[in-house]
């Protein structure tokens, strides 16, 4: 627990840095006013709107205002929706969470058996097939995969709905799109982790005890191979959330990713800041959880 708290403390400067980075990213350049008004607007109109929204204050003042608002949970208003940016972001969270979660499941379902199989059948044709497939999965840009899936599984053979969020059927194609890249990464990882573990002495011991090969592989080896995989999986959280930007846009999935893409395009800075901040917290939290899980999986590591 002490360890956990220590780590939690460590995140405070990180969060502060993130606010600064995000603030600088969105405020330093770019003029949201120009995007909010049509081509035909006059300079005068622009200037009055700019003044009214507080963009004419010096940057440090803006940052300080921003920070103190943030502490009170106020991220400002979305220009686009004229509502509280943070509320808007929170509203989108479940959809993205659902998608990310389903993608992770897809990734797990694909990668665990394939990773184990290719490690066990190392250098066989099957291994080559799986590792080749994994590289292919990594090499395919996800928007491309998404469009292809829609074309073949939704338009040509109308198995799945094209887009939108609804029941489980709606989740399948986006989850595959987002999950494939991660599955590919995890398959490679599980394979190499398993290969290393399978060469360990205790695997020989397990075999010498007369255990079935399946037990040796799936229990003795996999439990150990899982340890590094969990850490890397946590690092994938960031990739996963990043991937929703693309996947949600392709599938018109009403989540945080799509919100962010549009907010960035329209310079809806309050939303960009709120969402980025929330994502950062989410990523940091999942890393902490992964760290705890890691400790749970590996009895060798003791809590201080």
């Amino acid at each position, binding site marked *: 627990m002490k360890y956990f708290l220590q780590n939690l403390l*460590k995140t405070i400067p*990180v969060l502060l840095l993130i606010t600064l980075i995000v603030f600088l990213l969105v405020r330093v350049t770019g003029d949201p006013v120009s995007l909010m008004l049509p081509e035909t607007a006059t300079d005068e109109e622009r200037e009055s709107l700019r003044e009214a929204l507080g963009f004419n204050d010096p940057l440090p003042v803006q940052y300080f205002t921003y920070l103190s608002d943030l502490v009170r949970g106020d991220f400002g208003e979305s220009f686009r929706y004229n509502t509280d940016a943070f509320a808007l972001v929170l509203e989108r969270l479940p959809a993205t969470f659902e998608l990310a979660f389903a993608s992770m499941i897809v990734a797990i379902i694909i990668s665990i058996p394939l990773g184990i199989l290719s490690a066990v059948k190392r250098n066989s044709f099957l291994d080559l097939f799986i590792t080749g497939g994994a590289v292919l999965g*990594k*090499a395919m840009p996800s928007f*491309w995969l998404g469009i292809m899936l829609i074309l073949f599984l939704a338009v040509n053979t109308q198995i799945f709905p094209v887009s939108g969020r609804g029941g489980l059927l709606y989740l399948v194609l986006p989850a595959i799109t987002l999950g494939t890249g991660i599955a590919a990464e995890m398959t490679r990882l599980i394979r190499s982790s398993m290969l290393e573990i399978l060469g360990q002495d205790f695997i020989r011991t397990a075999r010498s005890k007369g255990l079935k090969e399946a037990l040796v592989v799936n229990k003795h080896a996999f439990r150990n191979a899982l340890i590094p995989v969990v850490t890397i999986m946590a690092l994938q959280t960031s*990739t996963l959330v*990043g991937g929703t930007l693309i996947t949600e846009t392709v599938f018109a999935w009403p989540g945080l990713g799509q919100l962010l893409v549009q907010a960035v395009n329209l310079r809806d800075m309050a939303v960009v800041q709120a969402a980025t901040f929330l994502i950062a917290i989410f990523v940091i939290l999942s890393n902490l959880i992964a760290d705890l899980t890691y400790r749970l999986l590996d009895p060798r590591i003791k809590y201080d």
Partner: protein
Amino acid sequence: MTSTIERTAIAENRNYGKRLGKLGKRLLKSKTGLVGLSIVLVVSLMAIFAPFIAMYDPAKTDVVHRLLPPFWAEGGNMDYPLGTDNLGRDVLSRIIYGSRISLLVGISSVILAGIIGMFFGLIAGYYGKIWDFIIMRTVDSFLAIPNILFMLIILAVLGPSLTTLILVLGGTSWVVYARMVRSETLSVKERDYVRSAKAIGAKDFRIITKYILPNVISSFIVIATLNVATTIIMEASLSFLGLGIQSPDVSWGLMLSDGRQYVATSWWVATFPGIAITVTVLGVIFLGDWLRDILDPKIKD
């Protein structure tokens, strides 16, 4: 004393050199490594000699000959072996020229990220203390924001161009190298010959360049190679969001993204750049995996 230290270090270096010497031999035995290297070589040659290989100017439009299919399909001909796009530009020539920018973006942003990451990683690992704290917290902050989001915001703000794209791709992915270099530095720092060198008062710069750098470099090369692949894909994703390479420059990512509208009607417009990306990334990953096996069996990711 000095000589002993140097000898140990040199011995390690020589050992490393020896391993390098064996590369060729071992490459021939690794089929995937060989495939990877060949792909990378072919693509690189294609990029370097693009003007000599390509039949057309990649930007030359020809409205009359727009959306011609590849030569084997009905209506296609050998004048445009892989067909033409929506403006009548030769797909093959564009792929050949596209390799230039795709590789340029991939390689130079990785080099940039590598230099930044190496610099901060060395400082954090070698000097430790407050430097380590500041640098590692910054690294944590960067890691907490998904790369693509980071790039999206910066590119939207700065406006996409080849230079900004490289800067942004490099400026956001340095953290991976910083982390890796830092942890390697930490372990090398504790080796006896580095300690002794320090004890007899060798300068930091000398210690870093002479003893630490050579030990870090192999993991570094492996990660850098694999990151070239990631960057090429990232460029494509940014093109999808409209913030990648901009015309009249041409990259595979741009072609793929522009061509996605034609998937159902003129498949060749997007399919060939898609294949080019996939094959190249495949080659780079194979090469990277093989380098990992050879240079540094320790690293897993």
